[in-house]
């Protein structure tokens, strides 16, 4: 069974070390939760690909099924679902997100 939207998502999360599915863009987040997620990634100083789900309705619905997660934003590192903004904040405050990106060998932000 192939689902073309899921294939597109798989391609995105497998071809970029860090992917944030979000509302708006990293420069102009359109939701407080997405804004928080971007701020955390900027503090981590990692390069990441922001995918604006508001600009792509297929991805907006498809990512919820792909991850079995009902809300946006969603963070992927090395193809693995990490969580939404609340989990990102908890992990960041505990130092776990820093460890995760370091162990994954993620490139720093340009």
């Amino acid at each position, binding site marked *: 069974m192939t689902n073309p939207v899921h294939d597109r998502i798989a391609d995105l999360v497998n071809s970029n070390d860090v992917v944030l599915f979000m509302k708006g863009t990293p420069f102009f987040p359109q939701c*407080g*939760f997405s804004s928080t997620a971007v701020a955390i990634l900027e503090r981590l100083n990692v390069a990441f690909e922001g995918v604006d789900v508001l600009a792509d309705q297929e991805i907006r619905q498809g990512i*919820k099924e792909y991850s*079995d*997660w*009902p*809300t*946006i934003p969603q963070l992927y590192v090395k193809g693995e*679902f*990490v*969580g*939404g903004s*609340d*989990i990102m904040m*908890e*992990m960041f405050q505990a130092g776990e997100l820093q460890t995760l990106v370091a162990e994954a060998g993620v490139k720093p932000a340009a």
Partner: protein
Amino acid sequence: MPMAAADIESAILAALPGARVEITDLAGDGDHYAAVVTAPQFAGLSRVAQQRLVYNALGGRMGGVLHALKLTTVVG
């Protein structure tokens, strides 16, 4: 139509008996909430799995009628 805090709490308690749920209406508009859920069922689960239990308790309303819920899960 937004979701009332009492409905959020009762849906979570129905799915997670013995849990404690604290809900804050962040904006006073009945639409932007924070919830701290403390439940014995979270023991041994990842954060993602803990939050999935809560989202499943809300039965598809999360991300729909309930669009803003800042969620914290605690093993208790």
